[in-house]
């Protein structure tokens, strides 16, 4: 009971802070839109229209993945802020399981980034994508799962860092490579073997792929731009990796010095 309370109150705290910081919401929605319309429109001139679909449409699931990646990791590594400003101690001395703290934090990131991904998803008519109501619903459900998995991954990362100075390290050496090796901007199957192997280890790859599976129409599910894995394989990987990240993060939190 105390543990459900703890999860609830940790989520409520993040929601309050999220709603108070409008600029964070605006910038986290602006980033994917800038990529979609500026990078996407620029690169679409280089990609043959015979490749299967317009490039802007191809990167659309990847852009949803990007929205989830950035806001989930940012939400999770707020733990580093909490460490630096002491609030984490308040949570750690509370009589609750470490796993409840991890789940509470992960759910906060999940909700925040799913809201953002849903907002970005709504630009689909502008780029000529056609989505049924069922596809929209399924995409949001997949976004929830992906966001949970990436948030948990972010918490594992956050347990390794003590101060917010490490932020740029996380940004440059974790978030950016994860984004570029996720199949968001180019199909994994077209990567050179070494990069393809790295992409297969990237938890975001399966999230982006699952989103491709829900967003692309069946006609687009063939050819070089098609999803790289089956939908069920994507889901299995996302769910298993989330469980592993929760266990890892709880373990790291439990460890006393």
């Amino acid at each position, binding site marked *: 009971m105390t543990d459900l309370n703890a999860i609830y109150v940790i989520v409520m705290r993040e929601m309050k802070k999220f709603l108070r910081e409008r600029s964070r919401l605006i910038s986290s929605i602006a980033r994917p839109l800038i990529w979609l319309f500026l990078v996407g429109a620029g690169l679409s001139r280089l990609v043959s229209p015979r490749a299967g679909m317009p490039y802007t449409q191809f990167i659309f699931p990847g852009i949803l993945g990007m929205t989830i990646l950035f806001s989930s990791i940012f939400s999770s590594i707020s733990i580093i802020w909490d460490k630096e400003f002491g609030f984490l101690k308040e949570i750690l*001395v509370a009589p609750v399981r470490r796993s409840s703290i991890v789940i509470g934090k992960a759910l906060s990131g999940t909700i925040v980034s799913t809201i953002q991904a849903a907002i970005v998803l709504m630009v689909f008519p502008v780029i000529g994508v056609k989505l049924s109501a069922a596809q929209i619903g399924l995409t949001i459900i997949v976004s929830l799962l992906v966001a949970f998995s990436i948030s948990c991954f972010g918490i594992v990362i956050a347990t390794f860092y003590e101060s917010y100075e490490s932020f740029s390290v996380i940004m440059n050496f974790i978030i950016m490579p994860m984004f570029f090796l996720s199949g968001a901007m180019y199909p994994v199957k077209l990567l050179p073997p070494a990069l393809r192997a790295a992409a297969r280890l990237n938890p975001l790859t399966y999230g982006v792929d699952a989103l491709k599976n829900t967003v692309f129409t069946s006609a687009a599910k063939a050819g070089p731009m098609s999803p790289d894995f089956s939908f069920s394989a994507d889901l299995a990987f996302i769910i298993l990796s989330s469980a592993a990240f929760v266990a890892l993060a709880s373990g790291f939190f439990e460890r006393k*010095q």
Partner: protein
Amino acid sequence: MPAIIRVEELTRKFGPITAVDRISFQVEEGTIFGFLGPNGAGKTTTINILCTLLNPTSGRAFVNGFDCRSESRMVRSSIGIVFQDSTLDKDLTAYENLAFHAYIYGVKKPEVKPRVEEALRFMGLFDRKDDLVKRFSGGMKRRLEVARGLIHRPRVLFLDEPTLGLDPQSRSHLWEMVVRLPREHGVTVFMTTHYMEEAEVCDSLAIIDGGRIIASGSPEELKRSMGGDVIFLKTTDNAAARLKLEAALGVAPEEEAGELFFSAPRAEEQVPAAIRALSDMVLSLRLQKPTLNDVFLRLTGKQIRPEDVHGADSVKEELRAYRRRH
């Protein structure tokens, strides 16, 4: 009175550094217990072990009957803590910080509001309950943390240097409230401090230096161990006065800077006797009571002052560097 905190042969090492070295003590329920010592003496390490944030290297510690190592969750629900550094969320309001605490400690929903408001009222912060904590002064933040520590009705409240960095007015304001805690909230207070005036109000004290407890007892007992008060006299003829005092009181006065002085276990009775013995040779007389500072000085050879952080800082630095490596 049963012991609410029991510490037996507790040791904590950080690599080559022994921060706490086989200490043992007990704290009786419903008292204010003071843990005194210079920086780096092992006070915070001990608190962290009692709060289950740190495991001991050896030895045992019990809070409210629960083992700090194996029953950490039970210990955590028995205690409230105010750490040296603020652990408030500055982007939430005072009320929200306390409500967060209430929920995470499992306070039932209908109880949350009355308890939070009661705690805010007790610490004199009710008017500011909807202000963001980042707009609070240092003293208000500290009071808010004490209020928060009481929300879940703990059996023991830990205060680690509660008045460090506060101005004198905020210090005494906070202090007035802390001394009321055992009676009004039925909570045992375990605190560490640098300030000797604050240590005076404790029911019992333990003095720690270099990771070891070097003395313990009530402030009175510790001061009595100094051998009582010291009487200082200025006379028209110190040499003659010294002989008279030796004869009449059986003491052996010494002279320093033109003043005679001798220690007097029962100074209140010995002052009139001294004046009678010296008749009109006395120019002035003063009586000095031993302070906890004197006790501390004699036991450790150091003055205890919050400003004295130099030597101790290097120990803290070493500890921090050690933690970073491991």
